[in-house]
């Protein structure tokens, strides 16, 4: 069953993002929201991990990105922006949601 993994922690403060990345399987997706959006920005230690994850889709929650003053130009290539409705769509599309709180 493919999964939607969600990460809401900064990858620089907590291990949630790293732990998620260590357990995400091909065909699944990762949604970064709240402070998790920092993991979606390029030029960071997290960006290399995003780039290295083959067969995994990455999404970032637009409202959380904007709130933190991050423009979409700052995003790592391949990361797609969604709104809350898009978050809901992803949760419905994938077989279950795994929250790395």
């Amino acid at each position: 069953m493919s999964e939607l993994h969600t990460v809401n922690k900064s990858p620089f403060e907590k291990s949630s993002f790293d732990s998620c990345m260590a357990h995400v399987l091909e065909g699944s997706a990762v949604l970064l929201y709240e402070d998790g959006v920092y993991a979606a920005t390029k030029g960071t230690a997290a960006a290399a991990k995003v780039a290295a994850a083959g067969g995994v889709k990455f999404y970032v929650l637009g409202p959380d990105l904007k709130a933190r003053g991050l423009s979409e130009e700052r995003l790592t290539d391949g990361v797609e922006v969604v709104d809350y409705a898009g978050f809901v769509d992803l949760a419905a599309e994938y077989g279950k949601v795994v929250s790395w709180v």
Partner: protein
Amino acid sequence: MKFAIQVNEGPYQHQASDSAYHFTKAALEKGHEIFRVFFYHDGVGNSTRLTTPPQDDRNIVERWAALAEQYDLDMVVCVAAAQRRGIVDDGEAERNGKDATNIHPKFRISGLGQLIEAAIQSERLVVFGD
């Protein structure tokens, strides 16, 4: 699709309750069913009607309550977590000899079985926490 929502954090301290609210609202607006929103851990703090945020800030408790009113949402506060943290309804006040209540009427206090039931009955469980 039928969703169950678990909220692990209280209002204001952490964004979890805000995110849960926006997700729940978006799901309802898209025509999905929210079987239940279950408040656990410090999340029980989302249910106190005594909250008084500054006027230029969002009122998280009232916002949940308004959503519940509009969509007939079942919002359940875990009894064990609530007792620890002083969230009280009439029944709990009487049982435990408390001189006040603070729960908002749109929320109800019940057992953890309600979380399990929600997970069984729903097609997706989405957890918001810190």
